[in-house]
């Protein structure tokens, strides 16, 4: 498994060394399809459903979910991206990267927003995302879809759709990318 530079995701810098592949690309595609079905089931269709991918890791997951939803239901839901860097409570401990753009052009009033992220860990990103969403309008409801739930929550937040529940140690690192999900550690 390839080593990867980790510049912009916690713990910032260092090289990620994977020691186990948790999901292959096919496993991930199946998980995405299942979550897509669950989203349609839970919302009785896709009316007023908007997918918002969280920068940076959640964006490609949101794209895959949107494609799966389009295949199943025939209509592709509106999608957007959201960078929560400026809404975080640990601002100063995280980088703000110009490439992570927020792109929400639709009005969110009355919509059902599905936040999509790659890994759910402490829940602080989601807390920040909920705050950030408030600056775009008042959604009817907000749901959360994540590819991996690795536990260790620090806030009362839970996901609605989970690709894979993955118990981890706190010092481990979960890496979600196009080819699958890896568990490993970062060497500084």
């Amino acid at each position, binding site marked *: 498994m390839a080593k990867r530079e980790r510049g912009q995701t916690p713990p*910032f810098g260092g090289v990620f060394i994977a020691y186990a592949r948790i999901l292959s690309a096919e496993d991930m595609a199946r998980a995405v399809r299942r979550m897509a079905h669950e989203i349609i089931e839970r919302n009785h269709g896709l009316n007023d459903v908007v997918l918002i991918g969280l920068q940076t890791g959640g964006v490609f997951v949101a794209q895959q979910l949107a494609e799966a939803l389009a295949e199943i239901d025939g209509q592709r839901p509106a999608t957007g991206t959201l960078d929560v860097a400026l809404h975080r409570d640990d*601002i100063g401990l995280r*980088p*703000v990267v110009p490439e992570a*753009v*927020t792109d929400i052009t639709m009005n969110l009033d009355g919509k059902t927003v599905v936040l999509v992220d790659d890994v759910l860990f402490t829940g602080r990103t989601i807390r920040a995302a909920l705050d*950030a969403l408030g600056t*775009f309008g008042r959604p009817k409801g907000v749901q959360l879809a994540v590819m991996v739930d690795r536990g260790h929550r620090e806030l009362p937040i839970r996901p609605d759709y989970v690709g894979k529940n993955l118990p981890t140690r706190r010092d481990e690192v979960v890496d979600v990318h196009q080819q699958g999900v890896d568990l490993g550690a970062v060497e500084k």
Partner: protein
Amino acid sequence: MSNALVDGNLLGIEGMTATEIEEILDLTDIFAEISQRPIPKVPALRGRTIATLFFENSTRTRLSFDTAARRLSADTMTFGAGSSSLSKGESLRDTVEVIEAYGADALIVRHPMAGTAQRIANWTDAVVINAGDGCHEHPTQALLDAYTLRQHCGSLNGLRIALVGDIDHSRVARSNVLAFTALGAKVTLVAPATLLPSSLAGWPVEVSHDLNAVLEQTDVCYLLRLQHERISEGLIPSVREYVNDFGMNEKRANLLPSEAIICHPGPTNRGVEIDAAVAADPRAVILDQVANGVSVRMAVLFLLLGAGRDLIESPTAEGNK
């Protein structure tokens, strides 16, 4: 991180490299997006206090710094020279110390004397941002102009820019020449000899006294404000003569290439450096400059006061503030 910002202040464009300027402009995109939101506010600078100290009048700079600070959720404090204890003989240093004692994290300073911002920076631990000091520099104006040009023309590299008007007394001209040329633009100063600095040694610019000849080879025509005192100082014979030679009217605007743009830092003297009809021309991007002023100043405040400082470029850096 940027040299010009590493000591925690923004005092001038002088000393900044193209990369440093571009970093700020890249970051500005993020803040421009925030201004588009239905609720344009993020909590990035919550709990920080930003004081504006203006010893000179201003509409744009002051309001846009104020707006920028509020959009980042900072608290703002306002000091106006007219209504303060200055009239009772309070010294500049006392004023600064008092404002610092109220807990200001940043001081945004405009003063008619060149070098005031630098002087204040020597006295205080707070972040100092120069919002115009005499005829010296006005760095945030240059940054917002560079951002506006980048927005309209893609890149400043190779862009032909004519700066027209009172170059000698203009801090905007000074900061803009430094920023534009650092980013690779070709700058031509167009002015009567009396309104040019006595020496242009070290300035990588061309000089012309003939606006009509320059316009045909210009992508950006940047007009500077003509202050009325220049007439009483005898630097120009009369406003009419200045308008005749250097005023932007419809006829001159038609000499510009069709995709050229016209800029002005404001406030405009309608009928002097720019005709009302030209100011309303879609090629005049004066209001874009104003709107971009807020975004650029948000980026600057965030870099100097927020997480930005250590993290924009090197995410691994430990906080060293």
